[in-house]
């Protein structure tokens, strides 16, 4: 653990209001840290709470009726949970950029790309209006959009999926944020476009020393470009592991995810699937939430208990009770 991480998330618990009295927790005990200049991959199945965690970092949870119920969320020394709207206004979009999940619907359909970029640039009130166009072109050049002058005058429906995603990234980096939260930025895009977007994120990290949280359910992708991987299952972080150590994972869920890669088997060979379905929100099993689907399960895993991440190596933490017995 580093002494001064850029972001520190500890035992974060996010709940939604279902009715006046009923609360459902969608993220329970998420813990990890992000150091500056690192790319962190956040991986897990649909519904594991990845997107909610991202939203907590940009302070837009309340728009989904959710709120932080417990835990710590600290960004560069600022407590984001207690942060007032005025504090958020200085952080959101300026120091933390957000690339949303549905890139294809990302840009505002009734604004030109130019108007939208101008909005992102003018979050800084002191920015001279006369320079907006110059800065817009500069941003579009950073994200490698061809014919930027034309694109400025276009609307989102005139652009391809990859270009829309590039525009969203351009908006996110307009204020040179210290952290970019990219929520499944390439889901639904072609492999070739995906490879280009990933190169672009790496380049941005290199040029501006930006930290990036990259959310995806694509393990090979995450493994290739991230420094560390945080694995989520059913609202909890179950493992944090450096990418290069992924083969020595000490959590059965990570191992199962890794083994379900189709590029590991021969054509038409037997695929290793993960047993069952992810548990649904509110119906989480007691004890380890992966216990129902786990091949390594023992009775002690099913006992109701907290399963914190245990430090088992440099930068490597797991929540599995039987981690020392796992060998592959």
């Amino acid at each position: 653990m580093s002494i001064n991480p850029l972001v520190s998330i500890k035992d974060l618990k996010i709940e939604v209001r279902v009715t006046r009295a009923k609360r459902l927790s969608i993220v329970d005990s998420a813990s990890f840290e992000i150091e500056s200049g690192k790319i962190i991959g956040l991986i897990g199945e649909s519904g594991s709470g990845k997107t909610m965690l991202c939203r907590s970092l940009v302070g837009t949870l309340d728009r989904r009726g959710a709120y932080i119920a417990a835990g710590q969320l600290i960004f560069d020394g600022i407590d984001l949970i207690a942060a007032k709207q005025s504090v958020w206004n200085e952080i959101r979009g300026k120091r933390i950029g957000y690339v949303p999940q549905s890139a294809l619907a990302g840009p505002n359909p009734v604004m030109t790309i130019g108007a939208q970029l101008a909005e992102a640039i003018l979050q800084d009130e002191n920015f001279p209006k006369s320079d907006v166009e110059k800065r817009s072109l500069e941003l579009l050049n950073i994200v490698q959009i061809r014919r930027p002058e034309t694109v400025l005058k276009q609307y989102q429906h005139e652009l391809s999926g990859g270009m829309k995603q590039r525009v969203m990234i351009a908006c996110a980096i307009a204020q040179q944020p210290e952290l970019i939260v990219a929520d499944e930025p390439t889901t639904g895009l072609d492999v070739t476009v995906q490879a280009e977007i990933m190169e672009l994120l790496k380049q941005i990290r290199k040029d501006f020393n930006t930290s990036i949280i990259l959310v995806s359910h694509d393990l090979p992708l995450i493994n290739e470009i991230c420094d560390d991987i945080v694995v989520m299952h059913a609202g909890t972080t179950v493992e944090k592991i450096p990418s290069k150590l992924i083969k020595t994972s000490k959590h059965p869920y990570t191992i199962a995810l890794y083994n379900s890669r189709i590029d590991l088997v021969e054509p038409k060979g037997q695929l290793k699937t993960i047993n069952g379905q992810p548990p649904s929100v509110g119906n989480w099993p007691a004890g380890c939430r992966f216990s129902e689907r786990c091949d390594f399960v023992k009775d002690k895993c099913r006992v109701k208990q907290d399963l914190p991440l245990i430090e088992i190596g440099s930068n490597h933490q797991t929540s599995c009770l039987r981690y020392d017995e796992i060998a592959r």
Partner: protein
Amino acid sequence: MNIIEAKDVSVTFNSYGDIIKAVDHVNFVLPKGQTIGIVGESGSGKSTFARVLSGLQLPTSGSVTFMGNPIQSGKNTYEGALRKEVQMVFQDPYGSLNPRMRIVKAIAEAIRQHQGLDKKASRVAALDLLESMGISALDAQKFPSKLSGGQRQRASVARALSAQPSVLIADEPTSAIDQSAQAQLLGLFNDLIKKGLSIVLVSHDLGVIRYLSDYVYVMKDGVFVESGKSEEIFNNPKEDYTKKLISSIPGRSTK
């Protein structure tokens, strides 16, 4: 025996006076019992071509035959007994099931339509079919909105199979679902292939294509730039475009 053959098929669209050639004079064969992959980037025309094969889109020129007979008569395709032979699975599992019908009812209706069973028997058949797709009787009673993306996609495969087709055309069946659900769906397709179903698989995910296909067509700008046996395409790609596609697969270095 070729179950589907496409000869010199073109599809052009008129967009504000511009003629766009989505599919440009292509030839294609689907031998019985094989899985054919069509791969290419967005906008290469692969979905349009899949729609031509399934009869949802009429070609501007050229013809498609099913077991030697043209599928098109006048403006209609796959008429009468042919209707059930070719079924399609769509990319978006959210959009391909009726949101106001319970899964079992939606499937039972398709079975009643295509197999001529009565209401009760079709329901039993639907439950059986869903069971074989890994959807329990309990989940079958739910509305599509209550299922996960992977379950929904398996339900729409069940919907397609309820007609007992000889050909399944799958347009990007795995791109909207996550990795573990994808492994389950591909396992399912694998079982169907072993049972002798012929499949046309359209995808930009080369991993999926490599896993299932016997023969691969690579599409770019409306034409097939390369085609060949699956291993040949992946081990010895000839066209630069194919090489670029293969080099973009993430994680090849970390296998």
